[in-house]
């Protein structure tokens, strides 16, 4: 079976925020793609990283572990993490794992970005 496809596109929004559009799967195999997106956002000087999960097709425990690694890097660099576009199912998984306490979850992109601006 082919490796699951994951693409991540980084959009800079204003001076300090970056939205990472995730499309496909979030698994351990996605780590190089996510870390590359992180580095791009970091180079652009983003202090708030917003993960867009609208295009998420599948996430497993390996993907959750990868998000923890992502969170550790962001914490180390004093960057805030936010997310939007999670389905109810994955939102519940964020709650179970308590990722929602470290990654603020919003209903949509506008809320995620306007909260950053306030």
């Amino acid at each position, binding site marked *: *079976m*082919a*490796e*699951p496809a994951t693409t991540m596109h980084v959009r800079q929004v204003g001076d300090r925020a970056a939205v990472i559009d995730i499309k496909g799967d979030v698994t*351990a195999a996605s780590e190089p793609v996510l870390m590359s997106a992180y580095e791009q956002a970091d180079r652009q000087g983003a202090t708030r990283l917003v993960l867009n999960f609208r295009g998420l097709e*599948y996430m*497993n*425990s*390996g993907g*959750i*572990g*990868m998000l*923890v*690694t992502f*969170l*550790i890097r962001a*914490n180390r660099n004093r960057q805030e993490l936010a997310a939007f576009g999670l389905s*109810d*199912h994955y939102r*519940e*998984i964020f709650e*179970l*794992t*308590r*990722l929602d*306490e*470290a990654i603020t979850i919003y209903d949509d992109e506008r809320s995620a970005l306007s909260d950053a601006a306030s």
Partner: protein
Amino acid sequence: MTSVARPAPRRLASFALPSVPGNERIALARVAETVGGLGLSPARLDKLKTAVAEATMNAIEHGNDSRAELPVRVEVFQSGAEVIVTITDRGGRSHDGVPENRAEVPDLDRKLDGEQSSGGWGLFLIRHMVDAVDITTRGGRHTVRLMMRIGSRDTRRGED
């Protein structure tokens, strides 16, 4: 004392998959297709799919060491108002270390402090996704049995 006869479990599907990472997606799709008409709500079906995927991934990677020639067997049963899915591997090296019932519970704070690795969420997810989990190792076979009640509601998701 009176006893209530339980109907014999009815096998709905049985299939084997090569132990190739990624094949858990096939397992979850086939289980979802099999139980599709049994009355599980969409929210609970999502949970069962996640549990099946995680258990199959563990079987592939830890039970069968990702050796493609070793099959992971998946069986789906209906027993009264319960859906039961069993995932069986050969019980290889990774099951021989720390038993699952004594595996460390993942703790996000400890992970962020570097006291735990960032992974280790699989069994935690399985246990929270289904109504009951039973893990047995017998005769060189390691089986995870997942049970989901049909007709139960998921109050967290506001189902009524």
